[in-house]
């Protein structure tokens, strides 16, 4: 069974961390992943940096720009990860924009992911319809779970379509925003979280955007299976470097 599906069956609220590969330094990737697992993180989203990250706020824009300046490329990331499964067993997901994958070749990219032991992909700008028409068969052939986003504005009808097309979890964007722009949840989020919970979807939901401490983690996971922290972790790396990762994690739970 795919590691993500296994993880979703564990009887606990999951904490997932996003970081941008190649940041702060080009070769920090493996250390960050290993330290995150050692700190008790359940799942990791490895960000493949892109020059034009449309859905990201300043924090991840900056880490992406810095990573590209450091020389990160798709090939280098794959090279860095080639032995990752010798030391790391939690689910690993690649998160990035669609164009770098398209240039690498979708089939070749998926094959490489499978070879390394990547379990899933999050590609915010690969829309549901295009995925289903052109790429679903390739993803499935290589046992890669594709993760779709939903937002407070996503209609029930579309959420059901996305639920049907998903086979790992649904990425619940907490508010109408780019990454890293809001902290804390208000009534709008509460209502939204409850609406989604009441839909009884087939796939578990993991909440992302706006989670940066224990409070927001607990709020987000009241109904959902888990939560993802991205910008707050990048900020921690910017401030403290890569040697105090466990300290960051211990403050969340």
């Amino acid at each position, binding site marked *: 069974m795919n590691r993500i599906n296994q993880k979703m069956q564990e009887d606990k609220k999951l904490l997932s961390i996003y970081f941008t590969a190649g940041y702060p330094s080009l070769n920090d990737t493996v250390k960050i992943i290993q330290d995150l697992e050692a700190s008790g993180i359940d799942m990791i989203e490895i960000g493949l940096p892109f020059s034009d990250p449309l859905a990201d706020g300043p924090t991840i824009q900056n880490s992406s720009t810095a990573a590209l300046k450091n020389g990160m490329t798709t090939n280098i990331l794959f090279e860095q990860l080639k032995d990752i499964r010798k030391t790391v067993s939690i689910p690993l997901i690649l998160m990035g924009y669609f164009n770098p994958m398209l240039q690498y070749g979708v089939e070749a990219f998926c094959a490489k992911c499978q070879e390394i032991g990547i379990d899933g992909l999050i590609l915010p700008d690969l829309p549901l319809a*295009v995925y289903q028409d052109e790429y679903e068969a390739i993803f499935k052939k290589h046992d890669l779970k594709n993760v779709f986003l939903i*937002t407070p*504005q996503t209609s029930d009808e579309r959420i059901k379509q996305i639920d049907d097309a998903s086979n790992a979890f649904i990425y619940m964007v907490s508010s109408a925003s780019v990454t890293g722009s809001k902290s804390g949840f208000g009534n709008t989020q509460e209502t939204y979280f409850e609406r989604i919970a009441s839909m009884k979807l087939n796939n578990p939901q993991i909440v992302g955007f706006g989670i940066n401490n224990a409070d927001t983690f607990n709020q987000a996971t009241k109904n959902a299976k888990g939560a993802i922290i991205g910008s707050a972790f990048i900020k921690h790396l910017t401030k403290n470097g890569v040697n105090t990762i466990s300290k960051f994690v211990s403050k969340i739970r």
Partner: protein
Amino acid sequence: MNYNVNEKGYYGEFGGAYIPEMLYPNVEELRQNYLKVMAEPEFKKEFDQLLKDYVGRPSPLYLAKRLSEKYNTKVYLKREDLNHTGAHKVNNTIGQILMAKRLKKTRIIAETGAGQHGVATATVCALMGMKCVVYMGEIDIARQAPNVARMKMLGAEVRPALSGSKTLKDATNEAIRDWINNPVDTHYIIGSAIGPHPYPDMVTKFQSIISEEIKWQLKEKEGRENPDYVVACIGGGSNAAGTYYHFLDQKEVGIIAVEAAGKGVDSGESAATSALGQEGIIHGCKTLLMQTKDGQITEPYSISAGLDYPGVGPLHAHLYKSGRGEFYSATDDEAMLAGLELTKLEGIIPAIESSHALAIFKHKTFKPDDVVVISLSGRGDKDLDNYIKYFNL
């Protein structure tokens, strides 16, 4: 070959809507409504009326006698430079502001490079009393001070794009991010025939007034609707899309595109997307764009801020790939000289963007009895600083 957008939003293999889910409700709302709204008699009436009384259409189709003599062919200029605000951009912003009103939006955002589309957007927002935020690269703000001032006078807020290279590409990213953050009350007026479906088609249709007029104007002057060639410059490609639109299915009309070669196509400082681009995704659509082997979008260069874009609209990518369009590129030098030549021969100072189209005569020889219509997409007032510096005036 079909040159219209299909029901999925593609021109051949180009187009589509490669957008994050956060934008889906907005773009889907627009997709479901834009054709319906544009077909409403009330909408048409209001659009036509504003184009006539406010923009000053129809724009003249002018037989450029001395230019024709010089190149031994028959050259007509489609005078978009005489529109209110000085370029073709306003055709689209008038259409889109009316669309935004029909969709009950109360806030408008736009991106701008040189500031022409920003000014055209701020203008229609003033006209309609709508709130307007224009994103502009920090570097462009510094080099286009008069247009920034115009937008402010018109009541728009100009927000600097501080990310990436701080130019048009980044201003577009920031506008898209704004739309993600404001999904309910805001309409995004994209200024070119780019972006996720239905934008390229909607912008093309609003700009298609250009070729609609060319047809009847040419009939009056030449006794025939179809020229032998239509010529336009292409950055994202909105004036070109409008200039070509009613001729796309007329096989006897040659479609000519002139891109910005900057300091030379192979100089590393160029914006000649068809020559240098690969298929990929930029700002929500699949098209040709300048990028690294690794799929990172690269920075274009052109002396003309309006052509300084690393992609090209999906319609144009299709015209290029299918062979329907002939694609050329003009260097900074060729464009500047062509601009000066038009000024001396015809008494018209063109925008540097349009000067690229005029540089076609350096690349192609027409027959004496050819009728060549060139889109003079904008006037050169905004470029005076550049002309002064370039020619030491």
